[in-house]
């Protein structure tokens, strides 16, 4: 075990996988000399040369599209989109080309590619550099969507994503890059489609993703002092979604709060809520509550951005409502 940051854990995953498989290449804007805007690809250029670590022009459509073509022709691209907000420039190559190729071709194609991108608000980067767009990707059959919340998960999930033979969208909340944790030095995998119970509890299930997992854990700790036992479930992979782990938790706690940073309307939580309503309605003792961003672009000003991002108070309020516990202030 070693103590590393989320960014270092991702870096390590790249390094170990590239050492193992010569068909893996990394490409994207500023991934080489600069080592990635958030340092995730630091040192890879020196170790693997510019054949395998490719600084690209500013050309997202071609970065994604060449990865799709290269994957179909036998390579395993791991590309960095920098900010997920830039997917708009390149979306066709991802959702019409990468996601559908296998199916349209009658099952013949294999598309082993990973598109990494940072997401999320909290650094004042404003409307076009702060979004959480996981629901967009979840809505496309053929894509897998991964969203880790800890350094340990980041490394194991990235290795699994790289080894997966499908296009994987790997979303990294930018506030997590500096988060530290214990991470095995060797390569290991965490299966895609397997949620993790980050904290066990009896009274309410809180399903949260990325940075919201950390907020929810902090809330759970505070609530335990008020006699409320919250179970925090991190899906880790939004597509495929580990329905069983979520359902099992809800069958135990009978209450569900979903927390994510995307806008609430048609966000990933809508799918989770609908799934639970369909499959565990009889177990629910209270309406499901989603804590999520308002239906607005991400505002710049600190006062507005703070209002945009779900916070501990809003999560506590939601838990209080579903548990009906007046002790919770």
């Amino acid at each position, binding site marked *: 075990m070693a103590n590393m940051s989320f960014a270092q854990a991702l870096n390590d995953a790249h390094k170990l996988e590239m050492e193992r498989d010569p068909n893996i290449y990394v490409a994207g804007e500023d991934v080489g000399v600069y080592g990635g805007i958030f340092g995730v690809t630091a040192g890879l250029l020196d170790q693997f040369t510019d054949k395998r670590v490719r600084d*690209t*022009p500013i050309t997202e459509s071609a970065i994604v599209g060449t990865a799709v073509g290269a994957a179909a022709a036998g390579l395993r691209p791991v590309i960095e989109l920098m900010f997920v907000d830039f997917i708009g420039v390149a979306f066709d190559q991802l959702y019409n080309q990468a996601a559908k190729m296998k199916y349209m071709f009658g099952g013949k194609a294999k598309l082993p590619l990973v598109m990494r991108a940072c997401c999320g608000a909290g650094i004042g980067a404003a409307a*076009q550099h702060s979004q959480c767009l996981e629901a967009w990707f979840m809505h496309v059959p053929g894509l897998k969507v991964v969203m880790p919340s800890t350094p340990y998960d980041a490394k194991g999930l990235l290795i699994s994503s790289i080894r997966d033979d499908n296009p994987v969208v790997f979303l990294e909340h930018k506030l997590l890059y500096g988060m530290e944790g214990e991470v095995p030095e060797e390569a290991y995998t965490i299966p895609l489609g397997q949620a993790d119970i980050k904290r066990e509890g009896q009274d309410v299930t809180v399903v949260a993703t990325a940075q919201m997992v950390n907020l929810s854990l902090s809330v759970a700790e505070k609530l335990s002092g008020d006699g409320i036992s919250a179970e925090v479930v991190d899906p880790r992979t939004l597509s495929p979604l580990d329905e069983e782990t979520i359902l099992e938790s809800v069958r135990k706690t009978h209450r569900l709060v979903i927390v994510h940073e995307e806008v609430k309307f048609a966000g990933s939580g809508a799918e989770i809520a609908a799934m639970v309503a369909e499959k565990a309605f009889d177990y629910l003792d209270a309406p499901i509550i989603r804590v999520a961003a308002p239906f607005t672009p991400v505002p710049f000003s600190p006062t507005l951005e703070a209002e945009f991002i779900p916070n501990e108070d809003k999560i506590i309020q939601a838990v209080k409502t579903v548990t009906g516990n007046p002790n919770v202030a």
Partner: protein
Amino acid sequence: MSLTNEQMIGMYANMKKIRMFEEQVAELFAAGKIPGFVHLYVGEEAVATGVCANLREDDYITSTHRGHGHLISKGGDIKLMMAELLGKKTGYCKGKGGSMHIADLDLGILGANGIVGGGPPLASGAALASQYQGKDLVTVCFFGDGAANQGTTHEAMNLATCWKLPVVFVNENNMYGISSCTLNSMCVADIADRAAAYDMPGVVVDGNDVVAVYEAASEALRQAREGEGPSLIECKTYRHKGHFEGDPCVYRNEEELQEWKAKDPVLRFEKKLLDMQVLAREKIDEIKDSIEKDLAKAVSFAEESPFPDPSEIIEDVYTP
């Protein structure tokens, strides 16, 4: 087409204003008063200044993430800009946009832009509106060397010539898109050469020579305004600062920076005007003092202004 002394002094004062504004922003950023990213225009002042000196108030521009110089040159109010940079309610965008999204539609400024290559299609669109409505307005599209490789830029240029739109594409070739040097990101020496692919005129100018920029823009804008269609001007320049404030600049060397600093567009024009005796030392000091005063007012206005109230978050998403 020769410039009057008054026009030249005006251009000098504008460049100086951009330079001093950016230095002030750098200071405020370092003091932690500006959230997010700021991309400064230091070293490139001659481009926006020379181009916009040809524009009317109702002409349009599209800008980039490095937009402060464009905004100032198109008549933007530095008080409202500064307030926006600090995220204040009194700013150009009520604090909702920040540096990367400052806009003033009343001045034809269709916004800075957080998306590289986001501006060119908008520019062709604004030009379409003017052509469609029979107005003799032009649109200038500022875009970087990095943006020159985006598909959107090429699509916008192709459509502009197909429809003979009154738009001038002004490329600010500062040799880098973050760490990506043009030597690696493209295989032509001159972005202006790409104009041929769309059958529009393409010229290269010294982007650190404000008069050269002015003259090239003047001709391109005349053509656009008179219905002869779009063109491309490539201005060779350099940014003195990092890509954003805080950039360690590992991708370029000190020698190169010093070489370009020796060609500083503001100092160069200042020297030229002194040599030509268009400007006297006292006048330069006067200009500087007056900018300093305006800047001090802008900063105190921004600092004293309130932040938006959290309840304002849901306003302005839709037009009722």
